[in-house]
């Protein structure tokens, strides 16, 4: 059992606050992805869990044990680093065995575990090589094997795929997911790549400016962003936002269209819809087509709506010309509303 609990963790570097009062609980065997743009504090949070950084305040619990005062080696964790940190002076075998040797395991057990994890990561033929003789992808595999060989309760991964080329990343992503699910460890995985996050995570914690904005399942984060930032960060192209003004109680005017919405004592709201959740029809948001990008399975249409940019993913059969006036009908169950002051979802 290795549940991770982060309680009120804050981190300040001089005058700069990297993390504000972060609370997050990761259940046993859960795959949690910390997602955010660079500088959002996701790596700092991971390093605090690892023990490579000390929190300015707050507590970190792993498996029911408070660990924030313990050095990394006493936390029962293993880690995969962004640049792999495969030791150049040791062979692949000794790299994978490093942690086991530190634990003073008997040679037989070391060999068993190294061979098992090397096989798992398909690097058994590389065991005698040095890091300098490996490709980036192979180094990555060594780094993961080294972490798995520890048979840890918790594996921490800091952007492990970011240095690989696109094709290899795709391959490793699927492989990692399988291997980690089989190893039954609790995983925290840091990335700035939303596709990676969506495909790997049980839950995604979206971070922004040192705070966790939303922690939920990938579909939930995508469908029901808790804040405007989440909607604009996740999804490619991201969510569309249009200002809405009150028409009557419980009904709002959005780009020439009147829609039922929340009954609130406010004059302005923000209407939001995903690009794929609109259909071109007779009734809808008034849009002028600016750019058309046929992408094969569908066509990405960039329009002007209420003076703002609006992207719609439409059927590739639709015959649309630049300059056309379109009516884009939002799917009613996919419409989201945001408070323009707090930027939170309503």
């Amino acid at each position, binding site marked *: 059992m290795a549940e991770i609990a982060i309680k009120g963790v804050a981190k300040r570097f001089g005058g700069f606050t990297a993390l504000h009062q972060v609370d997050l609980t990761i259940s046993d065997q859960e795959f949690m992805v910390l997602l955010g743009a660079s500088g959002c504090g996701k790596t700092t949070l991971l390093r605090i869990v*690892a*023990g*490579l950084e000390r929190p300015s305040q707050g507590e970190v619990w792993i498996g029911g044990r408070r660990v924030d005062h313990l*050095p*990394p*080696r006493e936390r029962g*964790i*293993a*880690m995969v*680093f*962004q*640049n792999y*940190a495969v*030791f*150049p*002076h*040791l062979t692949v075998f000794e790299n994978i065995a*490093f*942690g086991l040797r*530190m*634990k003073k395991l008997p040679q037989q057990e070391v060999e068993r575990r190294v061979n098992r994890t090397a096989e798992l990561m398909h690097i058994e033929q590389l065991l005698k*090589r*040095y*890091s*300098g*003789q490996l490709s980036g992808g192979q180094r990555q595999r060594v780094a993961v094997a*080294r972490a798995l060989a*520890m048979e840890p309760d918790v594996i921490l991964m800091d952007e492990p795929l970011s240095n690989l080329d696109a094709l290899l990343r795709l391959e490793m992503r699927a492989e990692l997911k399988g291997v980690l699910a089989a190893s039954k460890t609790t995983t925290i995985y840091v990335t700035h790549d939303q596709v990676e996050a969506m495909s790997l995570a049980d839950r995604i914690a979206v971070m922004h400016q040192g705070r966790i904005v939303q922690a939920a399942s990938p579909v939930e984060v995508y469908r029901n962003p808790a804040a405007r930032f989440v909607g604009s960060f996740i999804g490619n192209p991201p969510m569309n936002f249009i200002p809405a003004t009150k028409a009557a109680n419980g009904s709002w005017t959005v780009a020439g269209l009147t829609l039922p919405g929340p009954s609130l004592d406010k004059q302005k709201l923000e209407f939001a819809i995903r690009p794929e959740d609109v259909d071109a029809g007779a009734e809808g948001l008034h849009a002028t087509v600016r750019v058309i990008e046929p992408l094969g399975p569908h066509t990405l249409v960039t329009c002007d709506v209420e003076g703002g940019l609006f992207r719609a993913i439409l059927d590739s059969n639709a015959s649309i010309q630049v300059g056309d006036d379109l009516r884009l009908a939002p799917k009613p169950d996919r419409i989201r509303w945001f408070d323009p002051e707090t930027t939170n979802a309503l």
Partner: protein
Amino acid sequence: MHGKALPYLLLMPATLFLWIFFLYPFALVAFEAVTRDGAFTLDNFRTMAGSWKFPATVRNTLLLAAIVVPIQLTMALLMASVVSRLETGRSAALYVFAIPLGISDLAAGLIWLAIFDQSGFLNTLLSSLGVVDRPVMFLGYQSKLTIFIAVALAEIWRATAIMMVILVAGMGLIPKEYYEAAEVFGASPWQRFVRITLPLLRPSLQTAIILRVILAFEVFAVVAALGGTNLPVLMGETYNWQFTLQDRNVAAASALLILAISIGFTLFFLRVLRVPKEARI
């Protein structure tokens, strides 16, 4: 101008410099060492080796290097680790440690002479504390051991910093991630030093040790200041043959011997501390 000639033209000044100031004098010395009155002979080496002082000279020089260099290496590693770990005042610490480097070796010898001399600081301190009744002759001809210790101390004080500077630079080249990985995978600070720092520092260790060993075989001014002729060393004997005994051929032979020992140790350390190409950072 032809593009092909340009690189050679640019190399010319440095090459000429080397030929005129290093290779040519070296050839002259080598020639003098193996000739006497124009005829080829190995007599110069025989004369040098046959001198009654020669065994002591070689022994003192090797012993001095064997004792001073390991102590310096240990201290330099310690100092470099401390300096590398400092977050503030790093350059200040580096400068303070490096001050003795700015002092010439003769001056360094004289400073330590001022300490160990019969009327020096150490005697003054000891007698004012009442430990001794009258000044002690630390550096007399009967006390070879104290002379040796004084020379070793002066050398350690004077030349440890050069190793430290090289090692600090080397430690700066080791990516921080390796330490973090080692830390996460269970290495204690000492284990990190032994299993990460030392192996990854090998190229710098090689440079530092070779440099220091060569300098140790050339020790001269510090010994001259503290021991006079009571602690004969190779370089001192070379000087003696040249200027006191006025025999440039034997002096040349002696200089060649120092060169041979230096080259021998250089090759030894190049081999022992070699980093295989595939295992480099």
